[in-house]
């Protein structure tokens, strides 16, 4: 269900924790699975749970508690914009509105061509770089003014 590369990465996570505490690796394992498959289906969650050797519902709890796990299909690029107060004071909503208008979608939606999904994020711990946007959960873009967004979207073709 997952590539050898992903399984090797999960093994690396498992190695960080005591042998009888494999459960500790579930967060990393789900992240690695999501990175490969873009989002977590129930089958994928169950697979990862059995790989880590925990009950599937325990993995499901984790996959639904932490909000960076995607359990519905997302576009090739998931753009998460922080609109929390510090970002909002520096244009977070302007950024979000610009993206909505430019992509023609709202928060939680995906463009018809399946390229972009737009999401509203909570504090990313980078308020000094506001407005901030995450691409595919892992790549942070700072000072996302409309100009910067145009540039970024062009890069993501």
């Amino acid at each position: 269900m997952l590539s050898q590369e992903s399984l090797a990465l999960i093994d690396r996570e498992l190695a960080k924790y005591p042998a009888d505490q494999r459960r500790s690796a579930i967060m990393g394992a789900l992240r690695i699975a999501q990175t490969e498959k873009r989002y977590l289906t129930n089958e994928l969650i169950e697979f990862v749970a059995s790989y880590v050797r925990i009950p599937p519902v325990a993995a499901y709890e984790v996959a639904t508690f932490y909000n960076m796990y995607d359990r519905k299909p997302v576009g090739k690029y998931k753009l998460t914009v922080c609109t929390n107060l510090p970002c909002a004071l520096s244009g977070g909503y302007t950024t979000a509105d610009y993206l909505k208008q430019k992509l023609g979608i709202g928060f939680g939606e995906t463009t018809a061509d399946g390229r972009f999904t737009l999401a509203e994020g909570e504090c990313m711990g980078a308020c000094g770089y506001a407005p901030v946007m995450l691409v595919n959960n892992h790549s942070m873009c700072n000072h996302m003014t409309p100009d910067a967004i145009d540039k970024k979207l062009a890069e993501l073709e």
Partner: protein
Amino acid sequence: MLEIEIDGKKLTVPSGSTVMDAANSIGVHIPHFCYHKKLSIAANCRMCLVQVEKAPKPLPACATPVTDGMKVFTHSDQAVTAQKGVMEFLLINHPLDCPICDQGGECQLQDLAVGYGQSGSRYQEEKRVVANKDLGPLISTDMTRCIHCSRCVRFTEEIAGYQELGMANRGEFTEVLPFIGKTVNSEISGNVIDLCPVGALTSKPFRYSARTWELSRRKSVSPHDGLGSNLVVQVKNHKVMRVLPLENEAINECWLADRDRFSYEALNSEERITKPMIKQGGVWQEADWQTALEFVANGLKGVIAEHGRESVAAVATPHSTVEELFLLRKLMSGLGVNAVETRLRAADFALKTAGATWLGQSIAELAASDAVVVIGSTLRKEQPLLAQRLRQSVKKGLKLAAINPHGDDLLTAKAAELVVRPDQLVEGVLQVLKAVAEAKGIALPANVDFGSIDIPAEARAVAAVLDGKEKTAILLGNIAQQHPRYGEIYAAATAIAEATGAKLGVLGEAANTVGAQLVGAETGGDVFAKPRQAYFMLNAEAEFDVQNGAQALAAVKQAKLVVALSSFSSCALEHADVILPVSPFSETSGTFVNMEGRAQSFNGVVRPLGETRPAWKVLRVLGNLLGFAGFDYASSEEIRDEALAGDIAPRLSNALAAPVAVKAQSASGLVRLGEVSIYQADIYSRRAPSLQKTADAANATLLKANAATLAKLGLAAGELARVEQAGGTAELQVALDAGLLDDVIRVSANHPLTRALAAHVGAIAVAKA
């Protein structure tokens, strides 16, 4: 000890107590939802907030450890304000649909809302609605009512041993659920219904069938496994509506297994027979009791006159009461018939012990062991609550090991495990015995021929589990007791027990397995191997209660006279000549002696259905009709007092009465592992529709083998396979069981699909269907 004051009352409590413990010890009630004495402390509902002197804010009584000199106020302004605040939060999203809620009348939220709630709500926003979940055939959900106390989730993880329920999402979107597409399949799942303080989890079979306040509560004892769980049977209009646990810390604690809880459905089954019936000229006809009883008495006399006393056998299941079995034995004695047998699922009857075989100690003592080795048992399915109890003991340090023909998960840590072929169970025990002898440097027992047995590492590990511990036990389960070489298993286990100081225990298969021995209802041996002319059958169904069901069925079919004393008609209709409708456990008084030798008497909770009569009364009248002396009992208590006169304890003994020769053998080829599945084990479970819809019931329809064996046989999971044993065949769906050894074919026994098969353990042929 710590000195503490609660609401002005001084008391001392052991250190380590919580404020809740302390309050409970003096009968001060602190409102709570998430707290439960058997579960880990969650402290999440916040209902038990109390004021503690010098604490700046109210503290949860359930989680706050007592400190010396602490002053607690459970009803001060600060405490009550906090409790009322919590109650308001609990109610803002609760649907308050009490009029249509099955929990109404026994709802902790409803009860506490009366004391701590307001008359109106300040919450003017939209209420939350939560989708219901499919938890399977036993538990109904109304998840909007959930107050997120997490008791059910903690139960599955901590008590049932496997987290089948979780709380997904977070914040106010938190929902209790099983993994998507899965149900709750634990054999003790129904306890979450009791644990749920609101109506979020309720009984599915009971749903909308009565209001709780219409029900009367009557005590009883579970007729299923050897534990003897105490029941509260709830009754309305002379009908059993629901079964709940009666708390008994020494036996079932506050729990019930699902079959204890839901098998009552059978009591109201359409298969109940309510009038005596006689088959004349191949046609069943209803008869009055007098006619039927005379038919039986005359029939028995006739057979004996014609064919002799040896031509009659009486069989009963060990789910029958002491009183029933005692009178059965007495009736047969009157007729001069010696063959009375309750070990219907046994295959080896040679074992002789000094007394009735039993657990060897109390259940509570067993739970306090340092190490336990289980031999030949699917412990969770045979003894669900005992398995639960040992699971809790493992958390406290008990080392659990197994010698088994399967690798089933006990949902707790196994310190060691030796998996063998089912026909090599004796050899497995011998391997451990040899390892024990080697480790201790003692001589091998003389009555054992070890042949060429060597000791695998797993056997050494099992032996090591018993080594150097103070309180240890060896337990023989159903697979061992029903094994064709039970005597050898028993003797080898005895030798290990003697060498290690472990207590040997036998896990009683049924509610009255020990009681059956005490009244001597096991004198027949295999009464179906050589067919008799007459069978007198009490609560027993040939194809489901006898190990070799096909053989038993053939025997009763050829018999001249078959008398069936039964609550249910279905099976008896096929082969009996007369059916006497007798009371199930709920309609008679009686006594079960559980695996620890504890006699528990109970009364009928409802009156007998139709013309059904308690079996002890039927047997008494038969005795009268036959003119036997000593059948003038006025009550079941009189029978019990005679049957169990004196102390029971001295009559219990697992000591061998005669040495058993044990000889290691080799085995090869396909071998059957036949096990009686949890919901086929007794006349009630097999007729409870809800239990028959469980995953365990579905699991019993499968043929299982390991991957190598499936490959060798050219079978794949999901395919249909045809098995053949002693001329009988069955078609079953194939599934993988990685815990089995090569060539082991696991097929349930005494099951409608496999009734044509023969011995539980024996050669079997398998091919693609």
